[in-house]
Each structure stands twice: as structure tokens, then as C-alpha cells.
């Protein structure tokens, strides 16, 4: 692989641009294909571009046969992202675990005592209102949103933005009773049942978690399940 191509891949990732590298396993020739536009550099045959677009949609790298050649299609989809609303105790282990799992993590909490660099070293912190932040970011299908504040002023408006987006996972901390009350409030904001059914609440897989770190495990496990097996898992 040419170093310039690797640098291009790193730049694409920073720009959240999906890319596919096609390698001819016969002669080693490579090109980079952009599935969103269909552009390829250098040019690639149309069947290879189409196969690359399908591979990117499926988020699955692999070998395809095209016009008698064996081509390895290597998918570089944008990094997974996790937006955590609430710099609470559970957010500390969740941020660390999600980073280990490859997520770019952002903590959103206007309460600067919660969202402090001392509590979240090395993590991106935003101290604006969660709904303002979330409405200004394109929450795409590689993004998860988890609300942890328990405070309707912070959680509800953020949830509304998340439910209007393509986020692949939306989780809300709170007991069944808290969650029912939350659904009532969100109905009052005009959200329909189809949207509300996207919320995972109480958040996380039911593994009997007690401590903040154990609850973080259950949340990351449920995010993984939805990411890899889909919403009907």
C-alpha cells in the first residue's frame, strides 16, 4: 500500500467519509473508492465500484470476483461515535470502555462540575445544552446516544434530537417507572410510538449489573448487540 493512500484513509476517517480500498490480489494494484459518490482514484471498473458500495453498506470487507480478477474490498467506514448526555459516575467507566471498543466518545453536560477534565481525562467534553449540541451534529448510523442524567430538563430535549436522527442506538438510564414517565413526556412533545420504540430503556442488557462499571458493561454490550445484530436482536 502506498503511504499516500494510507494518509488519505486517515484523512477520510477524520472527515467521517466512508472509503473502500480495492486490492487486485493478482497484481497488487490498489485504488480507493468512495461509496457515497461512486468516485474512484485511480479509476475502477463499474462492477468493482458497485461491489464496493455494497460492501460499505454491509460494513463487511471481503474478496469478490470481478471480470476474472480476485479483488479484496477493504471497508473503512467512519469511526463509531458515542454521545453521552450527563457526566455522571456511570459515564466515567462507560467512556473508558467505549474508547477501548473503538468509539470516539463525547460527554455533554452543561454542569461543568460534572463534565470536568479531571473526571474525564482525554475525553471530549461539551458544556453546552445537550439538545443544542445534538441538533448541530449529524447523528449518523455510526453514532450511539446514551442519556444518563435522570434530569428531564437535560435528557428529554436531547432525546428528541436523537429520535429525529439516524443514530443506531438510543439508550436512557432510569427504572421502568422513570422510563414510563419519560415516554409520557415525550408523547407530549409530539413524538410517535414508532420513534419512542427506538429507545432502549431501562438502558443496557439485563445482567444484574449493580456498580457503575457493571452498568457500563451492560450498556456497551447492548450497543454492540444492536450494532452487530440489528434492532431486532
Amino acid at each position, binding site marked *: *500500500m502506498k*503511504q499516500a493512500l*494510507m494518509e488519505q484513509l486517515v484523512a477520510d476517517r477524520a472527515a467521517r467519509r466512508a472509503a473502500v480500498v480495492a486490492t487486485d*490480489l493478482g497484481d497488487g494494484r490498489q485504488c480507493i473508492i468512495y461509496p457515497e459518490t461512486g468516485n474512484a482514484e485511480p479509476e475502477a471498473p463499474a462492477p468493482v465500484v458497485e461491489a464496493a458500495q455494497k460492501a460499505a453498506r454491509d460494513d463487511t*470487507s471481503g*474478496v469478490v470476483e470481478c471480470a476474472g480478477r480476485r479483488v*479484496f474490498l477493504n471497508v473503512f467506514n467512519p*469511526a463509531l461515535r458515542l454521545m453521552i448526555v450527563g457526566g455522571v459516575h456511570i459515564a466515567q467507566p462507560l467512556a473508558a470502555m467505549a474508547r*477501548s471498543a473503538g468509539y470516539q466518545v463525547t460527554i455533554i453536560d452543561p454542569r461543568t462540575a460534572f463534565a470536568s477534565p479531571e473526571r474525564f481525562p*482525554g475525553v471530549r467534553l461539551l458544556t453546552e445544552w445537550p439538545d443544542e449540541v445534538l441538533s448541530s451534529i449529524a447523528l449518523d448510523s455510526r453514532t450511539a446516544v446514551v442519556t444518563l442524567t435522570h434530569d428531564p430538563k437535560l435528557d428529554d430535549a436531547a432525546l428528541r434530537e436523537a429520535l429525529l436522527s439516524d443514530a443506531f442506538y438510543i439508550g436512557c438510564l432510569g427504572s421502568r417507572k422513570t422510563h414510563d414517565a419519560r415516554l409520557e413526556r415525550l408523547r407530549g412533545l409530539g413524538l410517535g410510538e414508532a420513534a419512542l420504540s427506538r429507545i432502549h430503556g431501562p438502558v443496557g442488557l439485563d445482567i444484574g449489573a449493580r456498580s457503575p462499571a457493571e452498568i457500563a458493561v451492560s450498556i456497551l454490550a447492548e450497543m454492540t448487540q444492536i450494532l452487530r445484530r440489528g434492532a431486532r436482536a
Partner: protein
Amino acid sequence: MAESHADSNGTDDAAIDPLSAALAWRSEGAAVALAWVVETWGSAPRPPGSVLAIREDGRFEGSVSGGCIEGAVIAAAGQVLESRQPRLLEFGVSNAQAWEVGLSCGGRIKVYVEPVE
């Protein structure tokens, strides 16, 4: 790679990134090879697209298996860096005589090893 890699904005990227490691090694003037899992059959431990970056001195970042064949891939990377020619390696339990390593899980994988130029 450091577990809390932070840039000047205090933000962090994904924890472990073999491509970034490879570029950092290149900027130090080292020769680097990349090994990609391209095909798997059966219960292979890492899916296609998994990558191992190998520096000429044998340092590495990433993985192509659960650790079963990394040693053989790193050795092959040394030859690839000498010849400057990519190679397609195949590993499996039935292929032990060729590489003297195999996958105890019973899977079979193909690994494409290429120099960074």
C-alpha cells in the same frame, strides 16, 4: 499505543489504530508492512479487514488472529520487506506442514502481506 491518546483539543480517537502506528513508524524512517485478513472460513478469530502493522524491527500493532499465527505473519513480513513484493498466505489446521503453525479453532484464513511504499 498509549491507552489515553489525546490531541491538543483534549479529544481522543479510537484507542488502538494500526494504520496510525504504521504512519508514525514511517515518519521515523522505518520500513513497514501491512498484513490484512482477506478471507476466512469456519471459526476464524478475526474477520476480513483486520490488520496487523509490522515494523522492520519486529514491533507490531493490531492482529490477524487470536495470536496463533502472528509470529508466522511477522516472519513473512520480513521477507516481503526484502523482496518488496506482496504475498498471499494461507493458514489452516490442515496446512501445518507449510507454515508449522495453524489455527487451533479449526478455521482457515488468507492473509495478504504488502509493503508500505
